């Protein structure tokens, strides 16, 4: 009984609650859907975003506008949220759509009414007006994005020279270092890094090395550029400053009250940390101007007394030289490969010169530089020079390369040993003059033409061939392949002839085989006793015919006793016996009987068999 009353009470409560919810729902949705749109600020500056919020109440199926296009404004959808509100048992359910509006230029902009479909009905937002000032400073809004931040607080740039004094032409390594506070991450380095100044040249900077460093308790993203400077004149030269105009992202330091970053405004530490992370925090790109301190380089002029082969190379170098081939004819080329390695201004490193160019013809060299570092001040430069001898030689003269060593502060001339080679043919080497003539700096090519100015060529030929000649090789000419038809036809004829001959041979062989077969059968029948004399002599004469035909390759039907005797060169007795045999055969064949004799006596048969067996060629 008590249980029944409990169940009835619970059912009554559920019913009341359901009625209340149904009532609330009818209150909420029965009034119809509505929409509002607001900007968190109607005034702003260029580059300062404002927030647009569209709120739809009273509908569960809403299609908000994803893209809002207004010229001069960059409007982007940032997210949506739902809101359930209850007041005096009047519940309402709303959808809130948030947009960020970034002014791209100054002026007054109108965000036109937007059409929103909500529960089968079409709603329109009100038109909104946004005033954008020309510069952030003119905005009526408070400074929220750090426009007046000193670049030195968030970034630094410094120029570091490896030395403060150098010689003209000497390569001076230099480093440009940029650092950006990680809370203001750099978006781009603008137009790049350039060292300003006059009186020096700088190597092209390559891609910087990036790192994260902690300096003075702050974490910086650093960019290190390496280069090398080469002073072009003596005296004090101002290097730099280095000017950089990077674009960094300045975080917004205050929150907009109209933007519910934390939907429920519950000061969630996770959400706070999330938005404080520089990678995710809202920020504004901004160009800042950075300038380093200038540096001074004391440049000394190169001392006098440079060797003749000096071409401006300053540094520290080594040289190796090789020549190929080792043997050649007069006029044939040698390839000299000179490799100059070390550290210095390789752009002034030129091919070494021959110590004695007399009797040699030298062609312009080729060069190939392989750098060992990022800035190209150390490595190896390889020169390939082609030279040819005008006369017989037994060695290639030494090669000379001169440079100025800034550490030793003196000129150094590298010289390799003469390379032994053998140059054959041509004339004997010209003797060097005992007393050297005054230096006239005669160029090498003129020295090379020591022979007759222009040798006499052979005479003209006044005859031409009857038929024009062709550059086409014989095997590629049509006539050549047509000529191959002749042997081909001969081959065909040969093959045909051999096949025909084989065919004939084959027919003859078959005929002989048949004759042999028949002869063997006759021989067997002649040994039998039950053969009548008429049949016996007929078979015996046929056996003689076959034997003769096989021996002389003639028609067996044309063989008679004389032919058989001649074929086997039989004596007179045998000839007579053969004639008797053929006569008896004819007699038996034409007379039709043997006078009553039914079988031949054995001695007669043996005599006939002996006669046939003794017929041998």
């Amino acid at each position, binding site marked *: 009984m008590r249980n029944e009353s409990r169940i009835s009470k619970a059912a009554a409560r559920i019913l009341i609650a359901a009625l209340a919810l149904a009532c609330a729902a009818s209150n909420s949705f029965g009034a119809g859907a509505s929409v509002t749109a607001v900007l968190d600020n109607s005034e702003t500056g260029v580059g300062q975003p404002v927030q647009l919020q569209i709120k739809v109440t009273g509908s569960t199926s809403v299609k908000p506008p994803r893209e809002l296009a207004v010229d001069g404004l960059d409007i982007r959808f940032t997210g949506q949220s739902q809101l359930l509100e209850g007041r005096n048992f009047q519940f309402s359910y709303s959808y809130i759509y948030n947009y960020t509006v970034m002014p791209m230029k100054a002026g007054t902009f109108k965000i036109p009414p937007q059409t929103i479909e909500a529960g089968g009905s079409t709603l329109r937002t009100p038109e909104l007006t946004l005033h954008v000032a020309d510069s952030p400073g003119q905005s009526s809004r408070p400074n929220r994005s750090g426009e007046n931040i000193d670049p030195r607080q968030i970034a630094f740039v410094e120029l570091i020279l490896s030395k403060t004094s150098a010689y003209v032409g000497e390569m001076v390594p230099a480093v440009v270092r940029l650092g950006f506070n990680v809370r203001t991450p750099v978006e781009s380095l603008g137009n790049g890094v350039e060292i300003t100044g006059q009186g020096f040249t700088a190597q092209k900077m390559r891609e910087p090395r990036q790192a994260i460093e902690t300096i003075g308790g702050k974490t910086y993203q650093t960019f290190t550029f390496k280069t090398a400077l080469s002073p072009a004149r003596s005296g004090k030269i101002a290097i730099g400053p280095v000017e950089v105009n990077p674009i960094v992202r300045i975080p917004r330091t205050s929150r907009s009250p109209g933007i519910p970053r934390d939907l429920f405004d519950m000061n969630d530490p996770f959400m706070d940390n999330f938005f404080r992370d520089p990678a995710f925090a809202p920020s504004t790109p901004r160009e800042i101007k950075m300038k380093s301190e200038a540096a001074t380089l004391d440049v000394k002029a190169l001392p006098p007394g440079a060797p003749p082969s000096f071409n401006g190379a300053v540094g520290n170098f080594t040289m190796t030289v090789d020549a190929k081939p080792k043997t050649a004819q007069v*006029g044939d080329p040698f390839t000299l490969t000179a490799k100059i390695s070390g550290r210095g201004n390789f752009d002034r490193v030129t091919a070494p010169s021959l110590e004695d160019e007399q009797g040699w013809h030298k062609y312009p060299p080729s*060069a190939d530089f392989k750098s060992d570092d990022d800035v190209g001040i150390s490595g190896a430069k390889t020169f390939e020079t082609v030279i040819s001898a005008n006369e017989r030689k037994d060695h290639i003269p030494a090669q000379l390369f001169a440079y100025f060593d800034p550490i030793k502060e003196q000129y150094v001339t590298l010289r390799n040993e003469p390379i032994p080679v053998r140059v054959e043919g041509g004339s004997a080497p010209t003797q060097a003059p005992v007393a050297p003539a005054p230096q006239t700096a005669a160029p090498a090519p003129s020295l090379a033409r020591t022979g007759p100015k222009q040798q006499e060529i052979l005479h003209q030929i006044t005859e031409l061939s*009857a038929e024009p000649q062709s550059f086409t090789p014989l095997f590629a000419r049509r006539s*050549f392949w047509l000529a191959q038809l002749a042997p081909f036809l*001969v081959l065909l004829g040969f093959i045909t002839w051999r096949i025909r001959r084989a065919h004939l041979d084959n027919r003859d062989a078959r005929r002989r085989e048949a004759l042999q077969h028949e002869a063997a059968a006759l021989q067997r029948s002649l040994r039998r006793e039950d053969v009548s004399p008429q049949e016996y002599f007929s078979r015996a004469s046929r056996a003689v015919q076959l034997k003769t035909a096989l021996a002389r390759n003639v028609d067996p039907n044309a063989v008679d006793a004389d032919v058989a005797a001649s074929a086997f060169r039989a004596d007179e007795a045998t000839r007579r016996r053969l004639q008797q045999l053929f006569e008896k055969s004819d007699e038996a064949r034409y007379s039709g009987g043997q006078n009553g004799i039914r079988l031949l006596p054995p001695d007669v048969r043996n005599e006939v068999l002996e006669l046939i067996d003794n017929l041998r060629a």
Partner: protein
Amino acid sequence: MKNRIQLGLVCAVIFALVCVAAGPVRGAQDPAFATANQDYSEGRFQEAVDGYQRLVQAGRFDANLFYDLGNGWFRLGNFGQAILNYERALALEPHHPEAEANLRLARDEARALELRKTWIEKYIEAGTFIQYSIAASIAVWLAVFVSARLFFTRRRSLGPVALIIFFLIVFALASFALYTKETGSRGNSFAIVTGKEIEARLATADNASSILALPPGSEINILSERGDWIYAALPNDLRGWIPAKSVEKVRL
């Protein structure tokens, strides 16, 4: 009797081939050629060269004509063209003694660079295209005939088989010689630098790094062509790009 017939067949084959390969008959005269020769002998070298070139453009290819044309260019001081035409004369008649002699002189004057021949090319150079072609043809036909005879013979001995192998080896060697001559340094791609102050470069640009300076008359081997540039094998075992207009192929 059989052997006589077969010998006759082989002789017929060889005779046919030799007839095809017979050398040009000398003695023909051409009025334009005579005029050009007259110009040359009277010292009007430019007119002589023009006359010879008209004959060449008309398709009259002749070793002596190219030789004379080379002489004309030599007299005009254009050693690149002189060497080119001497080479053409030698391409038509590989053992043209006058062309060989004057080519040496022109090379000396121009300081022209030569392509290095491989050792096998030096050996193969002893023969001509005609000789190798005939040798290959005769060898292969003899091998075929001996094979046919062997096929129809009942008693097979080792002699004919050895003979076939020998002929096939001769054919292979002759074919290899032809291939090497056609694709070697003096083959179909053989060309001469005719421009002045030409430099082979690393890339197809006038300001690209220079690899080798090529005096007029230098020999190259064209490997490929790209627009106005050709990629070529150069003397001293180098390779590089050369302006196409500064080079002419030896074979026309």
